[in-house]
C-alpha cells in the first residue's frame, strides 16, 4: 500500500524532472542558457505579486478542466469534450452576464450555475448516446467540440452582438473580478474564481470517495455487468458521469467569461483549456488533490513562459516543447514505473 502510494507521487515528479531536463538539453542545443531560461520562467511565474496573480488566474480554469477529465476517467469514460464544454459554459455565462439586470448576490451565482448547466448539457449528449446506443464518447465529444466552437462564433456575431467580433462586457454584478485582489497583485487579472475551483475539487473528492453516488459511478466504470447484477442503473450512471464532468468544464468557461475576460470573442481556434485539462488530469493521477497540484504546474509554466523571450531570449515555443515533453514522460509513466521497479529489485 505505502509503496504504491509513494509510486503514485514519485512517477509524476520524476516525469516532470525529466521533462525539465530535456527542455534544458534542447535549450543548450539551440544555443540558449538553460539556467537563465529557467530563471526567467520562475521569475515570470512567481517573481512578484503581479506574476503570482496571473499564474493563479491561469491555474483556475486548469483545475476545473482537469477535474472534468479526471472525474470522467474515474468513472470509466474519456471526456475529450471538455474543450467544447468550456466554450458553451463561457458563452452561457456571458449571456447571463450581459442580458440580466440583477443584484450581485443573485446575478453572479446565477451566471456561474447557468455556465455549469450549459457544460452539463454538452456532456449529457455524448452520455446519452453512449448509454442508449453505445456510441463511443470519444468520437461524439470530439465532434461536439467543433459544434460548440462554430455555433458560439455564430451566436456571438448574430445574437450577443450586432455583427461584432466580440460581445459587450458583462455587468459588474456578474463579474468575479475583485478590486482587492487586483490591488494586492499589482493589477493582475486574478479573480475570485480560484475559490470556486478549489471548492469544486473538494466536491469532486467528496462525490467520488465518500458517497454512494460515487460508489455507483466507479462501479459502473469498472464493470458494467457486475453493476447491473448489483441492481444499479448502468445507463443512468453513464449519463450522470458525463453530466457532472461537463459541469466542471462549463465552470472553467465561467472563470474565463466572468473572471478573466468579462466578454467573449469570435475565435478561429480552440481555447486549449479542455485539451490541457487532459494532461492536467493525467499528471494529477485523476485525483482531486493531484489535479490542483498539476494545474499549478501547468499554469506556472504557461504564465512563466511569457517572460522567457524578454528576459532570456528563449522563444516561448520552447516552453510548449517542454510542456509537451512533460506530458510525454507522464504518458509513458509505464517506462518510469518499470525502471523504478528494476532499481528496487536491484537493491534486494
Amino acid at each position, binding site marked *: 500500500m505505502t509503496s504504491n502510494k509513494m509510486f503514485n507521487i514519485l512517477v509524476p515528479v520524476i516525469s516532470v524532472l525529466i521533462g525539465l531536463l530535456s527542455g534544458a538539453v534542447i535549450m543548450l542545443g539551440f544555443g540558449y542558457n538553460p539556467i537563465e531560461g529557467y530563471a526567467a520562467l520562475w521569475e515570470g511565474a512567481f517573481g512578484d505579486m503581479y506574476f503570482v496573480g496571473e499564474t493563479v488566474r491561469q491555474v483556475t480554469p486548469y483545475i476545473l478542466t482537469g477535474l472534468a477529465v479526471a472525474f470522467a476517467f474515474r468513472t470509466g469514460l474519456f471526456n475529450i469534450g471538455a474543450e467544447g464544454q468550456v466554450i458553451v459554459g463561457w458563452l452561457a455565462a456571458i449571456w447571463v452576464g450581459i442580458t440580466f439586470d440583477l443584484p450581485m448576490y443573485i446575478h453572479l451565482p446565477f451566471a456561474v450555475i447557468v455556465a455549469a448547466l450549459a457544460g452539463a448539457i454538452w456532456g449529457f449528449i455524448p452520455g446519452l448516446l453512449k448509454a442508449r446506443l453505445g456510441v463511443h464518447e470519444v468520437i461524439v465529444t470530439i465532434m461536439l467540440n467543433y459544434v460548440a466552437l462554430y455555433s458560439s462564433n455564430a451566436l456571438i456575431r448574430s445574437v450577443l452582438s450586432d455583427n461584432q467580433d466580440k460581445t459587450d462586457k458583462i455587468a459588474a454584478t456578474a463579474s468575479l473580478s475583485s478590486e482587492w485582489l487586483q490591488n494586492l497583485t499589482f493589477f493582475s487579472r486574478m479573480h475570485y474564481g480560484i475559490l470556486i475551483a478549489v471548492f469544486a475539487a473538494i466536491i469532486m473528492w467528496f462525490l467520488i470517495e465518500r458517497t454512494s453516488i460515487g460508489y455507483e459511478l466507479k462501479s459502473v466504470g*469498472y464493470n458494467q455487468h457486475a453493476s447491473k447484477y448489483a441492481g444499479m442503473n448502468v445507463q443512468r450512471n453513464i449519463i450522470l458521469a458525463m453530466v457532472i464532468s461537463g459541469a466542471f468544464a462549463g465552470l472553467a468557461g465561467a472563470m474565463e467569461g466572468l473572471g478573466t475576460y468579462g466578454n467573449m470573442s469570435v475565435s478561429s481556434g480552440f481555447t486549449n483549456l479542455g485539451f490541457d485539462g487532459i494532461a492536467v488530469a493525467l499528471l494529477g493521477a485523476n485525483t482531486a488533490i493531484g489535479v490542483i497540484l498539476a494545474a499549478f504546474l501547468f499554469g506556472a509554466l504557461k504564465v512563466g513562459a511569457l517572460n522567457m523571450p524578454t528576459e532570456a531570449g528563449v522563444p516561448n515555443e520552447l516552453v510548449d516543447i517542454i510542456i509537451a515533453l512533460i506530458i510525454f514522460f507522464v504518458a509513458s509513466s509505464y517506462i518510469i514505473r518499470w525502471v523504478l521497479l528494476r532499481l528496487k529489485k536491484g537493491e534486494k
Partner: protein
Amino acid sequence: MDYVVEMLNIRKEFPGIVANDDITIQLKKGEIHALLGENGAGKSTLMNVLFGLYHPEKGEIRVKGKPVNMTDPNVANDHGIGMVHQHFMLVEPFTVTQNIILGAEPTSMGKIDLRKAEKEVQELSNKYGLKVDARAKIQDISVGMQQRVEILKTLYRGADVLIFDEPTAVLTPQEIIELMQIMKSLIAEGKSIILITHKLKEIMQICDRCTVIRKGKGIGTVDVADSSVDELASLMVGRDVSFKTQKTPAQPKETILKVNNLHVKDSRKVEMVKGLNLEVRAGEIVGIAGVDGNGQSELIEAITGLKKAQKGSIELNGKAITNLSPRKVTESGVGHIPQDRHKFGLVLDFPIGENIVLQTYYKKPYSKYKVLNYKEIYDKAEKLIKEYDVRTPSVYTKARALSGGNQQKAIISREVDRSPDLLIAAQPTRGLDVGAIEFIHQKLIEERDKGRAILLVSFELDEILDVSDRIAVVFDGEIVANVKPEETNEQKLGLLMAGSSEEKVGVVNDLE
C-alpha cells in the same frame, strides 16, 4: 528407467513466496501421469517452468535423460512437449486447419499451401480418431471439438509429450468419456501425457501414476492402482476429506419460487427457454442438471431480472416478480451466486470490503443521505471474511488479487448473509478444489436447513447428485424430467440430459 521428461527438485521463488519447493515429477514413456494439487498449490508454476516461462532457482529439467535448459516455450516445443490449454487459444473465424498451422504455416513460394495442410491435418485427425473436420470454422464447432483442435495443434507440431491443463472442466459427461478414449489412443501410438487436474475420479479412471503437490511442496508420486480416492484427497489437502456431503432428508415446506410457462430469448434473439415450469420450495435444494447451453443461463437471468422474459410468469412467495429490475428482485428476497464470478459477481478493482456491500451500499447503515459509512462497511466485511474463512491479506485488498476460491467464498458470504428466501447458485464450485467445494456444499445445506429455497445449477453431475434433494433435468429450454437423486445415477441423468425420454431411461417419475 525410461523417462521422457523429468523435472528434478524444482524450486521456484517469487518475492515473498516459494511457489515450488523441491518438486520432482518423472514422466515414463507411454503413461498418463496425473499432476494433482489444490488451486494455488503450484501446478501452473511448475508447468510454466517446464515451458521456460519461469526460470527455476534450483533443479534440473531432463528430456530423454539429457539435461535441457528451457529458455523459452520454443525450446519445449522443439523437444516435443506440447500443451493443451484450459482456455483455448483459437481464432474463431478461422478454420480448423488455419488455426493449427498458425505460426508454422507451410509455404510454397511465399504462398500458404492450405490444401496440403488440410490433408495433413485430416490424416492426423483420422489416425487418432479425433473426428475433426479440417475445414470447419472454429465458431461453428462445439467446445469438445475445439479442444480436439488444440490437441491436433500439438500433434501437428510433433509433440510426443502432451500436457492437458484441466481438460474436463469445460466438457459434458459424454465428451469426457470421448476425451478419455482419445487419451488412450494417444498412449497406444506411443505418446506420453501429463494430466493436470484436481478431479480425483478422473485420475482413478485413466491415470497410471499420480504426483501430488500441496502448498508448493512435492508430496510424492503414487501408483494409482495401489491408491484410492480417499488417499489421494488426503494427500492433496493434507487432512481427511468427506466426499459424501452430510445431510439429513429435506423437509420441504411452502413454495417459494414458481416459474410458469417461461419463454426467454438470448442476446442473439434465439429462444433458449421454451415454456419452462419449475417450483422450488422452502427447505429444499433443487438441482438443475443439463448440458451447458440448454437455457440454464437464460432461466437464471430471467429470474434475477438481468434478462426480459418474453412470456410466462415468475412468482416469489406468491408475488409476481416477472421482469422486475435486478434491484427489485434482490430486494424481494433473491440471492444470486452468479456463474461467472469475474464478470458478474465482483467488481475486481474494488477492495474486497466494498464488494461485500455491492447490493446493499445504498442502505443503512452503509450509507446515510448518500454518504457512505466506510467504518460500517469494513466492519461488516471483517466479520464476514472471518466467518467464511476468506483468505485475504486485508479487507482493503482488491478483489482481483484473491484466488478463485476465496473470491467465490466472498460472494457466497455476501449472498447468504442477506438471508434471501431464494438462493440461486450457478456453478458455485467451478474451478475450485475439494476443500473449498466441501465448504460451499455445507453452506448450501445449512441454508436449506434454515428453511431457504435453493436452486442449484451445475454441469457437474457429481455435485447435482450429491447436494440436491430433487433434480430437474433441463433439455432444450424445458424441464424434461424430475427425478430423485437416490433413484438415479450419472448414466441415466446423462441420457436424460441428452434428450432421451424418461420411459426409455426407465426412471420412474414419482414426483408430481
